[in-house]
């Protein structure tokens, strides 16, 4: 794991409240799809770092890109920062999406609800690099509305098939990404998902009903990102390896879990 002061080289707004920040970072080298970083604030009184998923890690350029919704103090501060500004970054953290699980699968679904989409972009690229064709991967991306703005959909389109949903039906299917999945009658062989908890529950149920594997990325309040504070727990079906009590650490055993192994 790397703890560094990383410099911003590009910062932009993608949609309503959604921002993209690219850092010069050594974390690009070890980063794996689905991992995240802990970003510090510049405030002397906001001492906890913020967990933010890695949207892209470019090993050649040595850059990582974070795409996030600016909702609290830390993400707003990050969204307002300019090229040249530096932030304390710790990472890469956690267990990401298993690429092996997608091998030999004909219909691979990447389900991204709202600000859950960013880590799936790095996954899409990584899956393509393993030799999987574009036609075998479909990203189902859910947004609030056309008015609040779409983001990353064009970058996904360069890698994989894309279908869209919006809460108000202004673009694509009206409803959630799971509604879009059902409406198109796609028959997934595997689902990778990241998004709000109700959506992940729906993905978990859909996968269980379809007897297919699903890997879902979870989030929770956390203090350390190191696996020691035991703040970011998810209930697990079996005994966890760390505390032996049916709790897994989202920062360490996760954030990506096999859906059937967690209780949501």
């Amino acid at each position: 794991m790397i703890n560094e002061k990383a410099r911003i080289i590009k910062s932009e707004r993608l949609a309503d409240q959604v921002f993209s920040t690219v850092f010069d970072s050594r974390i690009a080298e070890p980063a794996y799809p689905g991992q995240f970083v802990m970003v510090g604030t510049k405030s002397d009184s906001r001492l906890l770092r913020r967990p933010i998923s890695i949207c892209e890690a470019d090993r050649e350029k040595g850059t990582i890109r974070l795409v996030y919704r600016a909702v609290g103090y830390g993400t707003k501060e990050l969204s307002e920062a300019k090229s040249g500004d530096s932030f304390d970054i710790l990472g890469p953290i956690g267990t990401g999406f298993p690429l092996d699980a997608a091998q030999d699968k004909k219909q691979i679904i990447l389900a991204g609800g709202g600000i859950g989409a960013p880590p799936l972009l790095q996954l899409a690229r990584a899956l393509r690099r393993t030799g999987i064709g574009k036609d075998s991967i479909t990203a189902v991306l859910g947004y609030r509305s056309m008015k609040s703005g779409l983001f990353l959909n064009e970058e996904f389109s360069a890698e994989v098939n894309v279908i869209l949903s919006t809460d108000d039906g202004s673009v694509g299917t009206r409803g959630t990404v799971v509604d879009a999945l059902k409406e198109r009658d796609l028959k997934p062989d595997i689902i990778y998902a990241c998004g709000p908890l109700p959506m992940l529950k729906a993905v978990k149920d859909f996968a269980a009903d379809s007897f297919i594997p699903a890997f879902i990325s979870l989030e929770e309040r956390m203090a350390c990102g190191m696996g020691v504070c035991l703040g970011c727990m998810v209930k697990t079906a079996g005994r966890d390896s760390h505390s032996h009590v049916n709790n897994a650490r989202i920062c360490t055993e996760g954030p990506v879990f096999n859906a059937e192994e967690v209780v949501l």
Partner: protein
Amino acid sequence: MNPENINTTVNIAGVSFKNPVMNASGTFGSGMEYYEFVDLNRLGAVVTKGVAPEPWEGNPVPRITETPSGMLNAIGLQNPGIDVFTERDLGFLSEFNTNVIVNVCGHSEDEYLQVVERLSDDDRVNMLEINVSCPNVKKGGIAFGTDPKELQKITAAVKRKSLKPIIMKLSPNVTSIADMAKAAEAGGADAVSLINTLTGMKIDIYKRSFSLANKTGGLSGPAIRPVAVRMVYEASHAVGIPVIGMGGITSAEDAIEFIMAGASAVAVGMYNFHDPSAMIKIIDGIGDFLSENHIADINEIIGCVK
């Protein structure tokens, strides 16, 4: 002054610490996860996360929320129980040249004693810290730590079972910390550590609910430091046994403040989350402070502010 000629060794209850810096229980696991940032051999001690006779699930999430210059936590002492702990955590820690202080928790006096007995003749353990001050578990924990009579009673019970020196970890959620320190001393404690977290609450006004699932949590971080310094001062003047001070330490200067208030050693808690290398910087900074101020022995400044 040449840093090599400076003594940073402190002695607590017959146990020698190469320097006065350790982690606060619960903020560092057993040190395993921090191996890339902290050489455990450099620490005065590693203080483990609290361990009970059986595994504890802890509280529902959210367990963590940020507050001004601090945080609230309500983890609920999730731990794997003494069997896994002795094999995995103590096995790991035995590889390092540092003191091992095991933090002990329980729902009842009997549960504390079960852990104490298990560790009493374990050579890998140097001291036991008895957690009678966790605000986040309903039974045990703070129940023993807010009544001087109860505290003295459990201290005496632990001392009867333990061959190891005993540190009683005190709660700040009391009227008189001096009375609590005296009760621990009267029960036979070899040292006291303080302060554990202050009970607090945060409300999410948009959700009209508590920020923590447990409703209340323990406040830690720099926000509590002045309270902690005051209590370390009061406790160290009330008892003859050593005091280990903690509460919002972020720097060598903060650590020195506690030492001057009367602490023989200090623990770093929440700041390990902010900066995983914090303890190493604090150890180096203490050396620099002593050197720059021509202090040959750290023991000269323990409790120097009367």
